């Protein structure tokens, strides 16, 4: 930490950030610093004495971390419930040092948290998966609100089948644990179980401003992967999607296609592709 008094606005702001954008309480930092560094605070902050100058900086230190911590707790409520207050606070402090907020929108602060958790060597891998699920829910919530394609709209379209795509914000997450069960327990304020091994995939999407997630059924994997890879502005032919919903030659295939398509339509997963729109 430099002890030179800042000579211009940029240096002053860097000086401030060096003191307040680290996780330790400032009085502890001050105890660990050489005397001249603490004296530099009262040379910059107007106060009757050094302790008061540090106390004034501490107000900002507490407010900044409280706000960032609250934002993370709001975006990752199940993770916070699993770790408990102290555990989540410690994780948030460690995370924010590694990933300070990089943009004006507080909403984006938690974006790197799932990756950060996955890279922590001592951390359980189920926690990174749970964080990934929660961030996918945030992503879906903030995504553009597409008007879902419904059976009624499809009937109204008559012979001209529309081009379709997944509603904005839809994500498929590969998981190795039943983090969906952990999330559900946290959401209902129930006792949170230890995550158990349960490989599979989770589908996350938004319908009518509410974010949903569920396990993928085996038949959905291929058509969903195709839809996502074809997530271009002009979408895919509904007829071609139907082919992929039941690709075998089973005589009951047509009925199965309609059942599966109806399920996706009822869930609000599909929207009519409009030129210029992207997922």
């Amino acid at each position: 930490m430099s002890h030179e008094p800042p000579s211009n606005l940029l240096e002053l702001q860097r000086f401030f950030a060096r003191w307040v954008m680290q996780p330790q309480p400032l009085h502890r930092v001050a105890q660990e610093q050489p005397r001249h560094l603490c004296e530099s605070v009262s040379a910059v902050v107007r106060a009757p004495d050094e302790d008061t100058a540090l106390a004034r900086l501490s107000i900002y230190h507490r407010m900044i971390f409280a706000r960032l911590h609250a934002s993370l707790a709001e975006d990752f409520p199940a993770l916070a419930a699993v770790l408990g207050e102290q555990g989540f606070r410690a994780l948030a402090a460690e995370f924010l040092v590694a990933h300070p907020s990089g943009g004006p929108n507080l909403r984006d602060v938690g974006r790197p948290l799932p990756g950060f958790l996955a890279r922590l060597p001592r951390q359980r891998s189920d926690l990174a998966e749970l964080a990934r699920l929660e961030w996918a829910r945030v992503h879906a919530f903030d995504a553009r609100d597409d008007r879902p394609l419904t059976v009624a709209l499809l009937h109204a379209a008559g012979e001209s089948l529309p081009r379709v795509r997944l509603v904005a914000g839809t994500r498929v997450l590969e998981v190795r644990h039943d983090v969906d069960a952990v999330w559900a327990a946290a959401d209902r304020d129930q006792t949170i179980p230890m995550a158990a091994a349960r490989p599979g995939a989770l589908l996350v999407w938004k319908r009518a401003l509410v974010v949903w997630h569920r396990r993928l059924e085996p038949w959905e994997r291929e058509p969903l992967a195709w839809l996502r890879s074809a997530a271009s502005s002009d979408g895919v032919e509904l007829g071609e999607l139907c082919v992929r919903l039941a690709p075998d030659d089973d005589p009951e295939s047509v009925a199965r296609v309609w059942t599966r398509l109806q399920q996706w339509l009822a869930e609000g997963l599909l929207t009519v592709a409009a030129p210029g729109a992207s997922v």
Partner: protein
Amino acid sequence: MTHLGHGVGLRPSHYAWLLEHGAAGVEWFEVISENCFGAGGRPWAVLERIRDEVPLVLHGVGMGVGDARGPSDAYLARLREVIAALSPAWVSDHLCWGSVDGTWTHELLPIPYHERTLAHVCAQVDRVQGSLRRRLLLENITSYLQWQASEMTEGEFLAELVRRTGCGVLLDVNNLVVNATNLGLDPMATLEALPPGSVGQIHLAGHTRYPDGSAIDTHVGPVPDAVWAVYRAALRRFGAVPTLVEWDDEVPPIDVVLAQAARARAIEAELLAPSTPESPAP
């Protein structure tokens, strides 16, 4: 500037109610600009629902006209898109800095008030007003410290900023009271420093007082008496000004917030009603 009346801040806890009932009974809403930076979600659903019913104003917390690097082009570009979508009556932010070297603090931080900073902030305000093609209002902030380097008060700095750039002031009366509590600053001196006609909007809010005598700008609870007192003084100096009640913590039902706006309306009517000529003595 149009006198929209007495509005309230649009807060997420009111979204469900507004989606169901609309904005009846609200004179105008102040919307946090950055809440609209996403592509969708509930904020946009609410705005779609109410934008034709009630005037909207945009109020940013992340522009950073006091950042050493100034507001980013990306920020201004997104703000322009939001302005185009919502057609706000005006746009405001804060006289502060908030980020350095790509790290955002998400706090409203004080700048040193002296000529070099003033020149820098004037250049940034000119840039913002040119980019947005509209006048910007800047809010006086709550400060928990003062810089040794400051050579003028915040009021003097704002007054000179207004004179040089043509921007306006969003006068936060609660912030004046909090700064008086924590730093011993005189709210009336700030009012006197600001030229008449410079104030385009007033903010009212509550704060939290602690046993050690300090105060934090929490925007919780009803507007305290000390804030109402300075509001009265501000109205006497600046005349009728669009006024908005902020309530950000332990947010009550919207009716309770609207009751605070109604109180501000009543005070304005009481202070600024045309005086009735006295009957001549018999």
